[in-house]
């Protein structure tokens, strides 16, 4: 007898993989954003594809090089690229160029109350719905990340040596103040209740400001730079990528209820395999988090009942770079650096 390892390939696959659809596109997946029950995916060749009900659209040729960043404005996709363009794209592939900065990359895009916002170099550009020319927010150094609070009255811009906090007063004038901490700040986010501001840094930690008194503190203990973070639930946890020392992948979840995370220990959701968690995505409306690992595997865990961990995707040997859940929470899309994509339903047939 000859053992044929390809004879039972289904045995290695999770039930999510078995009932889902896999795409082996071979193009690095950079980002994914859900729009209604579709998910837009940005790739390392500058294209965007729309996935709906397990079907993949024709590629939309958005950028020349790569889709550096992605967000949404209602039912449209926003993208920024290394061709210096800031684009608004409809789900059927119609492209509208909002801004063009030539050889300067568009590093961040977002939208708020109809305003379209991007950053390129040291400047944030904001296009109001009825204005042709953008408003410019200038900074002293290159911008790492941008984020609005839930009400859209505050815009946080991370950069070297801290964050510039722009506040809109009641005459709709923007005033800036500075939150200072030396070093290079990358991504930035408000907590859902607007009480805290967090940044990832070049160092192996997360910096946090309590905004009522601007007290700052670090959430540290990481053995690598924090690549991905996301608030999970209304005012509950900040889930982050990471690992526990050598060889134990973990999503680190810091408590943000009550008096916040200062002086408290995080919950560590551990996963098998000698890897890192490279991407975290909240399960909308649940205190649960999807964690993608450097080997391509993806798990779903409830933060307060970590025994309830299930494996969604087994390994692909390629780092997970994107996870997105459709707005009705029925389906999930997972993408990695190797260009492997899985679309699958989250619930068993009988529940859906």
């Amino acid at each position, binding site marked *: 007898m000859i053992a044929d390892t390809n004879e039972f390939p289904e045995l290695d696959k999770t039930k999510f993989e078995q009932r889902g659809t896999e795409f082996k596109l071979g193009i690095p997946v950079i980002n994914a954003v859900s729009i209604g029950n579709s998910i837009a995916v940005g790739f*390392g*060749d500058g294209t965007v594809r729309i996935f709906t009900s397990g079907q993949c659209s024709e590629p939309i040729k958005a950028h020349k*090089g790569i889709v*550096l960043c992605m967000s949404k404005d209602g039912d449209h996709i926003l993208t920024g690229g290394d061709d210096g363009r800031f684009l608004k794209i409809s789900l059927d592939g119609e492209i509208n160029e909002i801004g063009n900065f030539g050889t300067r990359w568009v590093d961040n895009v977002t939208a708020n109350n109809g305003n379209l916002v991007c950053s390129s170099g040291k400047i944030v550009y904001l296009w109001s719905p009825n204005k042709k020319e953008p408003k410019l927010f200038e900074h002293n150094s*290159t911008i790492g990340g941008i984020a609005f609070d839930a009400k859209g009255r505050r815009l946080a811009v991370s950069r070297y040596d801290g964050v510039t906090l722009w506040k809109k007063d009641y005459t709709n004038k923007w005033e800036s103040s500075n939150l200072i901490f*030396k070093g290079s700040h990358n991504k930035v986010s408000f907590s859902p209740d607007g009480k805290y501001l967090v940044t990832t840094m*070049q160092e192996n930690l997360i910096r946090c400001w309590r905004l009522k008194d601007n007290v700052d503190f670090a959430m540290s203990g990481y053995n690598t730079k924090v690549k991905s973070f996301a608030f999970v639930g209304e005012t509950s946890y900040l889930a982050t990528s990471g690992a526990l020392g050598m060889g134990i992948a973990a999503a680190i979840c810091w408590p943000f209820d009550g008096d916040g995370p200062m002086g408290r220990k995080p919950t560590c959701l551990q996963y098998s395999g000698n890897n890192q968690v490279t991407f975290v995505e909240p399960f909308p409306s649940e205190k649960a988090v999807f964690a993608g690992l450097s080997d391509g595997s993806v798990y779903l865990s409830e933060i307060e009942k970590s025994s309830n961990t299930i494996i969604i995707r087994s390994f692909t040997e390629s780092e997970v770079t994107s996870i997105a859940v459709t707005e009705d929470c029925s389906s999930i899309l997972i993408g990695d650096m190797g260009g492997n994509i899985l679309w699958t339903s989250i619930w068993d047939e009988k529940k859906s």
Partner: protein
Amino acid sequence: MEEANKQVPVTVLTGFLGAGKTTLLNRILTEQHGKKYAVIVNEFGEQGIDNDLVVDADEEVFEMNNGCICCTVRGDLIRILSGLMKRADKLDAIIVETTGLADPAPVAQTFFVDQDVADRTKLDAIVTVADAVHLSSQLTDHHEAEEQIAFADVVLLNKIDLVDESGLEVVKERIKKINPFAKIINTTKCGVPLKEILNLDAFSLKRVLDVEPDFLTSDHDHEHDDDVTSLSFVSNTPLNMEKFQEWFGNLLQTKGQDILRTKGILDFKDQSDRYVFQGVHMLMDASPMGKWPEGKERSSRLVFIGRNLESMNLKEGFENCKSA
């Protein structure tokens, strides 16, 4: 080994304004047919650069929060290199052109400090383009010019048609005094075979093994204290590992700002492997590099390039590390 093959080589081009960096850059881009390059520039538009993929950078330097004031890195490079590594089409090489007054240390240190950058790219070499006519005065007036020579793996001595032979010798001597290990290539209009400046792997520990022992320079003229010079030491007596680590660690911690580059091959008592290291300021890359070759004499060699080296009692410190 497979990991190493995946790393895209990054060549850093330094040199004062007008030395010929852009000429060299365009030469590389036009002569390397069929290769995909990304070029990261800071003075875009000064002269046209003939390439599909030109990225504007801001040359932003920041200090790492690791308690070391000389540990400065280029934040814009981390961002751009990380972005370039996400491309679907793989690059053959990346070239970083720095501004005329740039200190090369933060560029080099970026490759030590950021794990993502170190995993996917590697610093191939620092190539400094120097103007044979003006280098001497630039070295006197600007410490950045000295640093660019001190960090160079290759110095392209350009515009040699504009100086006479004795003038050329004076400039070369000046370069050698700062950095006796850099390869000096004479050119006019940067005409140089590209294999002399690309894919040199100059920062790999294997290349440190090529460091020749016959570089002892004893003809020290009276120099200004803050001139960049080099010192090197050889010992045929094996070193005591503990003593060496204590001395060298303390040296880098206290004098790291003045020590620009170091390289060494070390013979430790009772160790069968050769130990090799190379560093930029306080940051080190070090590893055992296999057994000593059969039939070759074991010896330790140590090289420093930096400022105020005379005041650091290096010779005495090194002598004290010899095993009894």
